[in-house]
């Protein structure tokens, strides 16, 4: 039986595969996409429990996708983590102001990521 569904959007194949691999190993169902437009389309289709979004992606940015998710009543329960290389205070502030539940800066710890996912989904740590 698969666990909650997590949407992963990152144009970097290595990061996308790594995050998907880590989540699947921890028992989550993963939907992985390569850009912001696909992320928004898949979010509407699968209504994920959580979305992990890169900020700088082709098409819609992670912040754009986050705004759309927050404006959609059907996605009111979807938690969002921004996973990005943008570490400046002003970027973190913009992420949380837009409605992100968490903000993780690359380079990141995959283990820490999975703990944060588990906490946001209310299931406690899966590791």
């Amino acid at each position: 039986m698969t666990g909650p569904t997590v949407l992963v959007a990152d144009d970097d194949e290595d990061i996308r595969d790594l995050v998907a691999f880590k989540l699947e190993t921890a028992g989550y169902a993963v939907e992985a996409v390569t850009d912001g437009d696909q992320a928004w389309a898949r979010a509407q289709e699968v209504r994920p429990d959580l979305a992990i979004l890169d900020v700088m992606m082709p098409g819609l940015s992670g912040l754009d996708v986050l705004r759309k998710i927050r404006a959609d009543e059907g996605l009111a329960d979807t938690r969002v983590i921004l996973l990005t290389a943008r570490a400046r205070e002003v970027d973190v502030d913009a992420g949380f102001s837009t409605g992100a539940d968490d903000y993780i800066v690359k380079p990141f710890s995959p283990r820490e990521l999975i703990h944060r996912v588990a906490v946001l989904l209310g299931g406690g740590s899966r590791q």
Partner: protein
Amino acid sequence: MTEVHLPPWVLQLVLWLMLAIGVALLLVIGVARVTRRRRTGQQSRELAALRDDVLEVASGDDADGAARRRLDRLPSHLFRAVMPTLIGLLSKVRGAPARAMVSILVAHGAVTLAQVDLTARSGSRRAQAAWMLGLMRHTRSVPRVLPLLQDRDRGAAVTAARALGMLRDPRATGPLLDALQPEAQGRGGLPSWVVVEALVGLGPGAAEEIGAALRRDDATTRAAAVLALGLGQHVSQLGAVRDLVEHEQSPIVLAAAAETVGQLGSRGDVDALVRLSGAEHPRAVRAAALRSLGEIGGVPAREVLAELLADEDPRIGDLAAEQLCRLGGPGREVLHGVRGNDAAMASARYGLLIDALRHDRPLETA
């Protein structure tokens, strides 16, 4: 001119030979293509299996170390294929998985190779070598990377500075600051932002030496040092930064110092920032002082920012309004209460508009 007559059989032989050579060439090309396709197919199948091993190591899920051992034992031609993925992930992952990936690279001789390449003829290979050593956090290579700061290839010198920042060794502090100076033979100094970023990467161990650089004669060096102290959050050097604000003459350094006071200082520094926000200073210094007042906040900062809304320079008025918005509800209240002065009212409207756009808030008018 004499004509040469060849017997017909010689011409026929030449034609047959050419035909045979053509057929042989086609055969060789065909066999080579098939072999390459097979090899590529086999390699991508092997790589697909290896990619799982790389992901297992990079995700920290290789608890028994089996995936790492398999990668350690890879033959060199396969490892060369895996290496780009490994290096790509190494720059994006930290903690135990990063250390495991470094140990795989070390097992395949990546440190030795990179050290040799630091003196390669190609500038891009020297740069790549410095970057690799930085990524692998190989601090013992710091003395070998330092000379690259003066490399004749600008790209190699910039990459060396960034690699030294990753290596976090305070021994690089002095050489990084020196690299800001143009060389006697005409090569320009490194860009300030590269040096500042690298100095920040060195961590707290470099704070004292960076603080001492505030007393150097060169203004570019003082500006870079004071910025690095702020971005690196070196509160231990706040006294030296305050001294600099009191005595500095260069507007470039003063602007950088004002920025740093905002990052390190407290409400006790508001008076100094108010002085720097005065109209006798260049706009860059005033703007930096205003941003720092917005950073520090409090009632005195709010009052000064409110006065500056009516400044003769409209850019300063607009910036004061933006900083008041940063102070939250009380700052926005000041903007709503502006009356009588056209310049101040225009700046207040601008500040509220920008704030609404930035935070996706409905527009409140002044």
